[in-house]
């Protein structure tokens, strides 16, 4: 059972553009929604995270938008740079279980 659905699978954006990755979750008990960034040959690293009591969180060029009623959240990368080219994973977790349930990943390519 896929509890977190992520789209698109791949994304190509021009430098300076906005990258948008979407996720939908099924488990309403999730109370922690992180985004991880993974470069080739590396493990994923936390990029930004949000809890369902806020609708938006911004850190630099990265913003999470959260819609609790729709059970959806998205990552926006403003002014996308070639160095942002990586695989991005959304995830959901319950505080009671500590287990991260990942989406299927999005390969982002930012063209110069």
């Amino acid at each position, binding site marked *: 059972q896929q509890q977190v659905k992520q789209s698109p699978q791949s994304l190509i954006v021009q430098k300076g553009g906005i990258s948008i990755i979407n996720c939908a979750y099924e488990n309403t008990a999730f109370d922690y929604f992180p985004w991880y960034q993974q470069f080739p040959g590396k493990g*994923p690293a936390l990029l930004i995270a949000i809890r369902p009591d806020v609708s938006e969180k911004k850190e630099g060029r990265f913003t999470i938008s959260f819609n609790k009623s729709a059970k959806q959240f998205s990552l926006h990368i403003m002014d996308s740079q070639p160095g942002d080219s990586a695989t991005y994973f959304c995830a959901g977790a319950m505080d009671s279980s500590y*287990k*991260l349930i*990942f989406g299927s990943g999005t390969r982002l390519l930012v063209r110069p």
Partner: protein
Amino acid sequence: EADIYQTPRYLVIGTGKKITLECSQTMGHDKMYWYQQDPGMELHLIHYSYGVNSTEKGDLSSESTVSRIRTEHFPLTLESARPSHTSQYLCASSKGVMNTEAFFGQGTRLTVV
């Protein structure tokens, strides 16, 4: 840079061999995890531990086993490797209080021939 280490980084081994993938962290984290990552990117939780002498199977069934005798060490063992075990294995750890950042190792890419 996360203080979590996996060895080996790459391993090519014959069918039927016993292997152990090592994972160590120096952050004193209680929670540790093993994820299997498909070539198609998806990350599947195969084992987790909430502390010493605590291990649980994850959401994806795996023939591997794990142990947690020391806080810092969480090795994964395959008693008899098969080509279907070929994958990337990622170890992670996190603090014990509520959901906080999970730190991942660089992974072990296993190929069974």
